[in-house]
């Protein structure tokens, strides 16, 4: 029996899974980007609440970050997937629909990844804000900048600069977390590899391919992050 090699599997020939795997890779990147973006929005508001909120908002933000960093991501994905389906079914019943309505896996996955990464990004942004020297803000006040101008020209760019390394770490975590979204049936890289493994009986080959693709994505995006870090800190004196 001649078995297809890894090269046959990733090719686009008759035995090839190349196109399916490429589409699945795009899906993985999309889930990661969507989750990361949702997390960034949550992170900005979370950091804002923690830095300049009253006792109540600070308490809520603190509770959110403690809880979401203390429970497994998989559990959050289950909550959104099954909880979302239950909610959608209940709403459907209100409008007279019969039976079970599924919640889209992509949305559940992106929301779950976004909410868990939001807790991490809250801490990243908070630390970055703390790293901005008060002298720089004082200088902006002394120049007569208004509050919004100060935020736009001084605080936001400086915070972002300090946040880049931490954001890079969160991105790598989010990318790997996106693999968990496969439990909702979204055909991303890992799910596609499971399908391929099941239909060819070559699980080892498919999971090695998946691992290599994840490694490639994280290496390339790590390089991009390093580049952007260099670019955003080009005005900083070193040593």
């Amino acid at each position: 029996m001649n078995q297809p090699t890894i090269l046959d599997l990733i090719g686009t020939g008759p035995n090839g899974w190349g196109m399916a795997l490429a589409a699945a890779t795009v899906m993985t990147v999309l889930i990661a980007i969507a989750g990361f973006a949702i997390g960034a929005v949550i992170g900005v508001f979370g950091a804002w609440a923690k830095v300049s909120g009253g006792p109540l908002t600070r308490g809520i933000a603190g509770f959110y970050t403690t809880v979401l960093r203390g429970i497994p991501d998989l559990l959050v994905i289950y909550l959104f997937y099954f909880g979302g389906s239950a909610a959608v079914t209940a709403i459907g019943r209100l409008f007279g629909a019969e039976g079970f309505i599924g919640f889209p896996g992509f949305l559940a996955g992106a929301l779950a990844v976004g909410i868990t990464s939001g807790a991490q990004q809250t801490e990243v942004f908070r630390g970055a804000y703390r790293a901005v020297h008060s002298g720089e803000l004082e200088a902006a006040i002394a120049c007569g900048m208004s509050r919004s101008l100060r935020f736009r020209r001084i605080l936001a760019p400086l915070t972002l600069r300090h946040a880049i390394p931490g954001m890079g770490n969160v991105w790598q975590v989010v990318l790997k977390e996106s693999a968990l979204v496969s439990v909702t049936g979204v055909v991303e890289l890992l799910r596609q590899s499971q399908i391929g493994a099941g239909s060819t009986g070559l699980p080892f080959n498919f999971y090695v391919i998946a691992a290599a693709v994840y490694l490639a994505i994280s290496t390339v995006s790590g390089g991009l992050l390093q580049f952007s870090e260099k670019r955003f800190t080009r005005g900083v004196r070193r040593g």
Partner: protein
Amino acid sequence: MDLPFLWETFLSLIAAVPLTLQLAASAIVLGVFLALGLALSRLSGILPLDWFARAYIFVFRGTPLLVQIFLIYYGLGQFRDVRQSMLWVVLRDPYWCAVIALMLNTAAYSAEIIRGGLLSVPFGQIEAARACGMSHFMAFRRIALPLAIRQALPGYSNEMISMVKATSLASIITIMEVTGVAAKLISETYRAIEVFVVAGAIYLAINFILTRLVALAEYQLSPHLRQPAALPSTSTGATR
């Protein structure tokens, strides 16, 4: 609030806690030895060892844990040689596959934490140990390693917490630990929020106790940072 349902959920989930703890503990204990070996390889200055450790850490930190679990549990069974070898007794058991995958994964992260700890030991300390006539091994065992452990403990506690969270992935290869039982309950009852709250509270409690224990260990290991206990004043002490 449906209290009887919450209580029932709590009882079925708490029964799965020992399995979660067992998975996490075996992965952490086995992983720390591998991590120490990897950290020492990185620092050994022997190029092949250094490169092996670098490649290992790169691969295991760059790929999702779930892929690693699938690779070990489903992937290795593809080869007839593996299926007919002695190893198959271990590798066909989802529990051991989960432990092996978690161990290999945590070793990669811990190796870097331990390496950072070892690098933080001031060279003067090792020099002093050598000057006292300790052999390299004894200086490592008595001086460098304890100092490194103390330094690495805060970072390592993060890794321990993420291991406790990572045991939830074992549920995907059919192990009924806390998340596995929770997923079963959710798909049976479709009451995701209640089950989630109870399961989440259990994980939070485990991680809270874990951080307290590590903080206690840190306190025990750093007596030099504590306020000295007030000594009864003696006349000789005052005149100095």
